[in-house]
Each structure stands twice: as structure tokens, then as C-alpha cells.
């Protein structure tokens, strides 16, 4: 039985965006209709806000504020509150991941060939999936070619070396002043979707945002619970569930066959994000490249993982954790997540399905048998 659901789907930030509001059952029909109309209006405003985020933060738009910041030779610039907050969030993730996920890898991305938007539809038509090992347990998976740098061809990693330009950026959130060495360019693709998902949900449920700076809060019944809200920005999910609501069901796509679910996880709160090397990939200099740059090499990560799904209190954090583990690879990535108690599902290049111990806290089921369940260790 589906509740009173109001949805809005559109393309923005180079991906598919889906906003969902589920109204509580119980009120009289006329009140439900009024609430639906108010929810639709709120989601329309939310879409407008996300489009404003895109027009402000996109590096592919020369007229965006971010592009103007990157083009400026001034060391200090006054920027909008939106750019201030988004850049602050990206720098905070860089700090938390010790630079594994940082916003100053734009030169490396461009050097790898990522100079234009990979909007939905573009990537799938350019991916040349060849021979790759089958996904164990998934039956007759199509042959598949490993995407990324083939073993041995990637530059050697230097554990001590991590791109550290991000540490030179200073953001004064009070005065919206950004200071950085001239020439340090910023790219927020690694955190903007998660951050925007968090912001949209928080503002829709009336937990954040200022008047005129974000979508309006959803109407709240006089006596009933508030609505359940979810934002899905290209797979970076943030949900809000009022007390008493059941966990939100989420399927995790098989990275080798994105239209097929490989797992189903009940998300009681917070966020979930999946980072994969298979979605935004392109041919480059006779090989395949992807958009996850390893700051230790300055090149697309040569990782034995193809996908990491992480659960966290916020989509910003979940996205950063998933990317960091993906960059680190199977052995280090699992250790990284285990040390932080992160519930996660990892898929290796060879199709092995791995889970962390913390995932045990969440109700989940797999459509393919995990090759290794760290919770059982």
C-alpha cells in the first residue's frame, strides 16, 4: 500500500535527481489534498534551489560562480553564501579523509580527460564494456572489461605523497571570503551531490536554511507527524523519517549491471551513498579512465574495488567515506571502514561482494551471496 506520495524527478548536477515526500496517513481527504499541493510547491522550490546549486557550483559552466573563482587571479574573493558553505563542506571532508577526497584535484581530472560533463546518457553510450569476470552468484553476467588503469600501468603510489593544495584554502564563513594561492582551482563534484541532498532534506523538514536561501519547509499537520522526505541525487541518498515510521527501503545497484539490484538495505535514518568507478568512465589515450582520482598518484585510482556503498549520518559524509574506501582498495578500504564503524557494501573488480561488520545493525538482504562477510569474521 503506497502512502500519499509526492515526487519530483529531474536532471541536475549532471545526474538524475529524485525528491520524494510521503505524507502521513490519517487526515481527512481535503486536508490530504491541501498537504499534497503544499508538498508539490515545496518540491518545486527545492528543484529551483538545486538548479541554483548547479549554476553556482558547476565547473562545466563558464558563467558559474565556481568557474569565476577558478579563473580569478586574486588571492581573496568574496563569494556567495552558497559557495561558501559548499566549499567549507568539501574542505571538511578533505580534512576527515586526510586528503583522500579533496576539492583541488581538478588539474588531475582534466589531465585524465574529464573536461566535459558526463550527464546521464552520455556515459552509457561511451562506455565500452568488454570482457570482465562474471559476478559470482549472479548467474550468467555479461562479460565485462575492467575499467581503470590496468595493473602495472599506473604510476607508483607514494604513501607519503598526497596532493595537499586543499590545505592552502581558507574560507571565512562569516564574511564569505575565500582565500587561496592564485592558480589553485576548485572542483566540488566529489561532495556537492551529497551536500545538496543533505541541505534539501534538512530544509524541507524545516531543520535548516534561511528565508529566501533554500526551498521552503514542508507543511506540518497540527497534530500528526511530519512527512517522510528523501532526496536522491545520483545515488547519494538522504532520508528523513519521523518517529514511528518504518525504515526506508533502498536497493543497491549491481555496479556491473546498474539496472539490477544486488542488495536491499533498510535505512532507518541518515544517508547512503555509492561511489563507483564504472559509472563515469571514458576512453582516454587507448585505455579507460574514471573520475575517482587518487591523490597519492594524481591519476584515476588503480583500485581493486569497483563500487563502495557506505551508510552515514549525512550524505556528504557517506559520499566521502565511499570514495575514500574505493580509492584505498579492498584491503585498506575495508580496514578504513571497519576502524570507523561504517556500515558498507563493497564490490571487488572480480565481482566479490564484501560487507563490513557494522552493516549487521541494519536489516539487509542480498540478491547475490556475499563472497566475504566481515561481520562473520
Amino acid at each position, binding site marked *: 500500500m503506497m502512502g500519499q506520495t509526492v515526487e519530483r524527478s529531474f536532471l541536475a548536477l549532471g545526474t538524475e535527481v529524485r525528491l*520524494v515526500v510521503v505524507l502521513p496517513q490519517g487526515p481527512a481527504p481535503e486536508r490530504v489534498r491541501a498537504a499534497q499541493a503544499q508538498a508539490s510547491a515545496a518540491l518545486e522550490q527545492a528543484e529551483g534551489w538545486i538548479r541554483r546549486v548547479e549554476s553556482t557550483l558547476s565547473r562545466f559552466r563558464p558563467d558559474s560562480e565556481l568557474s569565476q573563482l577558478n579563473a580569478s587571479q586574486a588571492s581573496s574573493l568574496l563569494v556567495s553564501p552558497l559557495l561558501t558553505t559548499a566549499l567549507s563542506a568539501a574542505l571538511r571532508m578533505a580534512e576527515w579523509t586526510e586528503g583522500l577526497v579533496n576539492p583541488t584535484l581538478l588539474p588531475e581530472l582534466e589531465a585524465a580527460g574529464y573536461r566535459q560533463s558526463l550527464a546521464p546518457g552520455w556515459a552509457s553510450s561511451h562506455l565500452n564494456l568488454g570482457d570482465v569476470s562474471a559476478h559470482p552468484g549472479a548467474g550468467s553476467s555479461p562479460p565485462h572489461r575492467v575499467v581503470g588503469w590496468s595493473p602495472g600501468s599506473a604510476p607508483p603510489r607514494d604513501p607519503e605523497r598526497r596532493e595537499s593544495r586543499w590545505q592552502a584554502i581558507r574560507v571565512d564563513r562569516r564574511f564569505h571570503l575565500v582565500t587561496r594561492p592564485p592558480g589553485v582551482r576548485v572542483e566540488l563534484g566529489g561532495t556537492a551531490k551529497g551536500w545538496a541532498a543533505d541541505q534539501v532534506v534538512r530544509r524541507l523538514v524545516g531543520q535548516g536554511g534561511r528565508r529566501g536561501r533554500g526551498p521552503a519547509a514542508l507543511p506540518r499537520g497540527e497534530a500528526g507527524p511530519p512527512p517522510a522526505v528523501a532526496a536522491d541525487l545520483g545515488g547519494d541518498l538522504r532520508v528523513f523519517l519521523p518517529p514511528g515510521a518504518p525504515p526506508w527501503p533502498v536497493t543497491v545497484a549491481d555496479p556491473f549491471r546498474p539496472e539490477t539490484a544486488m542488495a536491499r538495505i533498510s535505512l532507518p535514518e541518515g544517508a547512503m551513498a555509492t561511489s563507483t568507478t564504472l559509472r563515469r568512465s571514458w576512453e582516454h589515450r587507448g585505455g579507460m579512465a574514471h573520475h575517482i582520482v587518487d591523490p597519492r598518484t594524481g591519476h584515476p585510482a588503480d583500485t581493486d574495488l569497483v563500487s563502495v556503498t557506505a551508510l552515514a549520518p549525512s550524505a556528504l559524509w557517506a559520499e566521502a567515506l565511499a570514495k575514500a574506501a574505493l580509492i584505498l582498495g579492498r584491503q585498506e578500504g575495508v580496514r578504513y571502514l571497519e576502524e570507523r564503524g561504517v556500515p558498507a557494501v563493497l564490490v571487488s573488480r572480480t565481482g566479490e561482494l564484501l560487507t563490513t561488520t557494522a552493516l549487521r545493525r541494519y536489516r539487509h538482504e542480498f540478491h547475490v551471496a556475499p563472497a566475504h562477510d566481515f561481520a562473520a569474521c
Partner: protein
Amino acid sequence: MVKKWTALVRFGLSVLGVVVGTALLGTMSRPTPEQTVGQATAPSALTGPRLGEAESESLYAAVDRSEATLSGAYSGEWDDHDRYHDDEYGGDDDDDDYDWDELWEREDDDWDDRWEHEEDHEREEALRLRPAFPAGSLPTLRSRGS
């Protein structure tokens, strides 16, 4: 002479003693009113010798006196009882004095209120127990990676 008078006095006293004694004996043998009530209902009265007419009259008179005494003893309580009913129903303790229509209407109103309250409570309880987001009400999301 003296002896003659003395004997005469003794005879007179004896006669008087006999008369008084007889009278006293008769008085003592008559039942008290309370004893009469009890004895009259005793099974022995039905199976024993039949009383004379005079004795019966005397017995009934005693019973009447006893009832009168009882009535007097309870009269205050009945007055209180009547007053209670007067206060309760707004009238005398006489059915003819009640406004039964008004009473029934009042009773009906009370029951209507009670039922309405019960129904409201049941409705509220049902709403409280019915989940605002029943199972299956949330559409499935999809984390497909980026």
C-alpha cells in the same frame, strides 16, 4: 377481748393477703407486650391450646401497641429516606410526582454523551494505533552509484 380483735385482724389480713396475692399472681402471669409479639408467632401458638376471647383481645391490643412503638422508632429514618428521594428526583417519594419524561430524557442525554465520548475515544485510539506510515508506504529508493 384483745385476742378477739387480734384474731379478727389476722383473718382480715389473711383475706387481704389472699386477694392481693391472687391479684399479683394474675398480673405476673400476663405476658408483656414484647413477649406477646414473640410468642404469637411461635409455632406453639398454632399447636397449643386456643386462647380465650378476652385473652385474644388483650394480645391484639399488645400487638397494636408494639407496632405503634416500632412505627415511632423508624419514623425518623423514613423521613430521611423520603428526603433522600426528594433530593434525588426532585419530588416526593411518590411515582406520580416524578416527571418521568424529563428523567428519561436526562438519562438518554447522559447515555448519548457517554456513547459519543466512547466513540471519540475509540476513534482517537484507532488513529493512535494506526501507523501514519504503514509498511509499504515508502517507495523504494535506489543507490546506483556516481
